[in-house]
């Protein structure tokens, strides 16, 4: 893992806190949404987009040489929107319009409506096959000398890995040695009804991914410094295999009553709950600003 300057880590933690405030506020205002799986992947998205991992042009969401990021777990759209908000690709008014008629922020990401969204998602198990196709094409184009630096990232939920289409894509990505592709698994261990392990366990996910021919990393998905180091290592490691990062997370992370609670997969906090959640996030921010960190 590579060293990351302290200052940027602190800034990213503060940004992640802002993003959680966005997630809670926008879902509360909308009256529906998926807070649990949004909050579990906030730190991953903060590290990717704001930590300099993804090659993007902040001034141009459509920059032709950008890395591609696919949010396969589309129900975590509020976390992606909070990220795009930090980048300035959507504004306060957009954030206030989540799940409303004519808004850019559809309940699940809509590439026709929202800048920075590469493809519509929400039907689970589709992001990884898309990412494999994109990575295959970019590698081919690199061979043809047309483009060379672009990488592809896809974020899936662990429950989503129950969809068989992922395992088709895992085989294909390894077969074509797509070393320009990184799969990030937001392993919060819960799905809609219950725990992943009690419904249809993934078993030893690391072993499975390795057996499928992927170069596997594991990281605490709420440790910004660890995430940055792992994402950068995964990008730079000399290995012909596609990369997979199992990111151990807590569903609902940052809001005490939502954490590890399956009933917060879907649903909106009422005003009292939203107030409590925002107070907790404000306290976390205050502690960070005092230099206590958030660990």
């Amino acid at each position, binding site marked *: 893992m590579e060293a990351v300057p302290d200052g940027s880590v602190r800034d990213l933690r503060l940004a992640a806190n802002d993003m959680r405030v966005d997630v809670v506020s926008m879902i509360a205002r909308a009256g529906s949404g998926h807070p649990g799986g949004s909050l579990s992947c906030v730190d991953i998205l903060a590290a990717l987009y704001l930590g300099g991992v993804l090659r993007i042009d902040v001034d141009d969401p459509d920059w032709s040489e950008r890395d591609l990021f696919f949010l396969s777990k589309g129900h975590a759209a509020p976390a992606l929107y909070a990220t795009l908000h930090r980048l300035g690709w959507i504004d306060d008014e957009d954030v206030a319009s989540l799940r409303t008629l004519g808004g850019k922020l559809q309940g699940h990401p809509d590439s026709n409506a929202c800048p920075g969204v590469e493809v519509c998602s929400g039907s689970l198990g589709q992001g990884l096959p898309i990412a494999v196709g994109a990575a295959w094409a970019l590698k081919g184009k690199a061979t043809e000398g047309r483009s060379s630096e672009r990488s592809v990232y896809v974020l899936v939920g662990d429950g989503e890995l129950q969809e068989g289409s992922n395992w*088709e894509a895992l085989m294909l990505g390894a077969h074509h040695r797509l070393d320009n592709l990184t799969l990030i698994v937001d392993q919060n261990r819960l799905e809609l009804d219950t725990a992943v392990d009690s419904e249809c366990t993934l078993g030893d996910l690391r072993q499975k991914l390795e057996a499928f021919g992927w170069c596997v990393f594991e990281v605490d998905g709420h440790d910004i410094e660890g995430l940055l180091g792992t994402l950068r290592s995964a990008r730079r490691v000399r290995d012909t295999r596609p990369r997979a990062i199992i990111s151990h997370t807590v569903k609902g992370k940052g809001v005490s009553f939502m954490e590890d609670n399956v009933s917060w997969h879907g649903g909106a906090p009422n005003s009292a709950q939203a107030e409590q959640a925002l107070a907790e996030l404000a306290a976390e921010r205050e502690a960070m600003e005092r230099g206590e960190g958030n660990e």
Partner: protein
Amino acid sequence: MSKRATREALGATLVELAQEGADIFAVDADLARATTLQVFGNAYPDRLLNVGIAEQDMMGAAAGIALTGGTVFTGSFAAFGTGRCYDQIRNTVCESHLNVKVCPTHAGITVGEDGATHQMLEDIGLMRGLPGVRVLVPADYHTACAAIRLAADVEGPVYIRFSRFATAEIYDETIKGSFPWATVLREGADVSLLACGVEVEQALQAADLLAAEGVSAEVIDIESVKPLDEDLICASVAKTGHVVTAEDHCVATGMGAAVAGLLAERCPTPMRFVGMRSFGTSASAEALLRHFGLDAEGIKAAVLDLLR
């Protein structure tokens, strides 16, 4: 007259398009030899991605390739390359309006001996219900070539339904397509006979049989089921006052149902539907067309029933 299957147009036309400079890719699921996409792969090995027996992955990968630029054609058989990955076609390709051309072969009962699992009879219905996708059902080799060129020319998803069954050449290599696409192949006064795909040849034969009985049938090839050439269809129907549709597809959701929807709104007209009302079964294509009433005799019987 020589006979060729529409599927033979697929690989060959993609080679031509690539030679002309188009940024073409193809994805198949272990059926590239049968779909003829391998012909393209032989000419451009780095532009054909064969994903193995994994249709969801085929459609997802096609979407991913399209997102990097270029025009992507998918293969497989209609039973799998449409049905197995309908979710990917709907939620990824169509909703995101990607430049993916869904081009499965082996549609309909004319697949023949392989039987019901392989005889896709619902794909036109699945596709025409989706917003933003255009649906082409070529009747012969030359219109299949033109359909592929038309699909490559327009931005966004297009569905082209190809057959394994060899059909007569109705057009020549000069044919060009545009949306909406329908062609009056034979003018008539008593009934409008609307057919698509392999049924166009049968409809033309039925028109001969009907002429012998004193019935004048106008035969129209419905090349684009979506969009329908509404004005052409309505003009014909206004003249004849009777409509029979014929397709190698279920009648519940196919071209005939689309035409019925149009006519119900614009000019309600008595109709009969020639098509499938059950799963298929194993037999030769010719035997199946006869057995299910999709051959020229069956179409003739439907017309006479309507005019009675």
